[in-house]
């Protein structure tokens, strides 16, 4: 199981940038289709909010690949 968790980490690491690429592509085409300020703001908000989330997915994938999830914390002393 730990091996699957570890190698799946690569997928999550790749999924972050891939999701951002798709989002930016869609945002660009939607703005091109309807080049109004509120379309730009709307898609700007999406890109802005998803950027840290995608980064989080990359970090999650990295942690998974590094084996951080092989053993989950048993108590709070393991967390802080």
């Amino acid at each position: 199981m730990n091996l699957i968790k570890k190698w799946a980490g690569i997928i999550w690491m790749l999924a972050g940038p891939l999701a951002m690429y798709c989002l930016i592509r869609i945002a660009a085409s939607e703005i091109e289709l309807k080049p109004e300020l509120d379309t730009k703001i709307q898609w700007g908000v999406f890109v802005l909010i998803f950027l840290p989330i995608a980064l989080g997915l990359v970090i999650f994938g990295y942690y998974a690949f590094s084996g951080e999830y092989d053993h989950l914390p048993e108590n709070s002393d393991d967390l802080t």
Partner: protein
Amino acid sequence: MNQNDTNKIWRVISASSLGTLIEWYDFYIFGSLATVIAGQFFPKTNPTAALLSTLATFAAGFIVRPFGALVFGRLGDLIGRKYTFLLTLVLMGGSTFAIGCVPNYETIGFAAPIIVLLLRLLQGLALGGEYGGAATYVAEHAPANRRGYFTSWIQTTATLGLFISLGVILMTRHFLDPDLNKSIAKFNDWGWRIPFLMSLLLVGVSIYIRLKMSESPLFSKLKSEGKTSVNPLKESFGHKANLKMVLVALFGATMGQGVVWYTGQFYAQSFLENVCKIDFDQSRTMLIWAILFGTPLFVIFGSWSDKIGRKWIMLSGMLLAVVTYPYLFKRMLAISKPDSSTIIANKSSSDTVRTLITGTANHLRTINSKMVYTSGMQVQQTATDTVYSSTSLPTTSKPVIKTSKLLGDTDYWQIVLLLFVMIVYVTMVYGPIAAFLVELFPTKIRYTSMSLPYHIGNGVFGGLTPFVATLLTTSFPNNPLAGLMYPMAVALLCLLIGALYINNKIDENVQD
């Protein structure tokens, strides 16, 4: 638990749940009345006002909610749960009441949309801080073996908030005048303010009850020992050991929960109204029934999670959603499509009205048709087009068709059943999640650590569902089920991550 403890925990649950319920109610009435509010404050003819409307819609849910989770989560871990979620309640109630008092665009011009936008942002901020506080507060009072059961009462509030907001809106729309059309007109003019103004009374009662509550015993103990966190944000997101749990909570649980929650309760309603073309009131009463039947299941799944663990109940809800959504939505679409061979001819009618367009020789033609079917379904259709007088132009323009369907009893209850199934999935993913999140983090940074993944999962991933689904339906006009691709993909990803990385173990000790 002795009788004293039992009484105490129920007082804690009542005080927390009532406040959270009111906060959800306040947040939903704005969303449910978005069209009416847009007409009052954000006229489409004015581009700046329309822009502010976009900001009110997207910024409140997607940016301000997670931001509120950080601001109030930090406060809750620094000064305590009780005063923080009291503050969120005052903010939410105050801003909701104030929205009901703001004069419209015609009266005070640009000040109106700006004030409404600011108040909406305050609502989002307050909501971001409320849930984590209420869930933490209840969980820190609950015994270890019944944490899922007791926190599940908090979980019912989001759905009940929606239920009450729908109910209040429907009742206000209907009872302002004996004539329904006049009543709706009055509602759109000034009656929409009533649900907002009512909030003051509800919040007043809730503040009074919450003021009487004492601080969470676990937080009080930490504080008396001087062990509270000095910098909750840094400890929550700056330390790898805790950050990895925040990430697994987001990608392995709350993200999937958010999309299942929004699909079952919001996208389903939007699908019934916009794709199936079911009447405004009927699509809402269907959801009201489904919610009413489904709500007890939050408590049942929450309680069950105390016995078998939280993980597999939540993930089963996601799995069932991914597997059965296409069937459930397809079925709703099929039920709403009448069989033309079953029209009752003598009860159906059609009339045409032609109006001369001023300054031209062209006519505006409106064809009103009413079809009644043997199943009891009534379909009202209004087709409007222009009939040109000039011979060089085509005879007519493409008609604008508006359809509204009223279903017969059997069809109506079949759709309630399908909605109920979707609400069951909502209760599976949402019932145990408060206990799951509470158990993942230590007391001193619990409020901050659990609030952010919850509000990104529910607010951002979930809140985007109706928007992305509509966008997909527009991009694939021949596939009415295209909108489901987004919630299914997110739920599937979350299911895989959750299955691999989440632990099913119930943490007995949340006192650390």
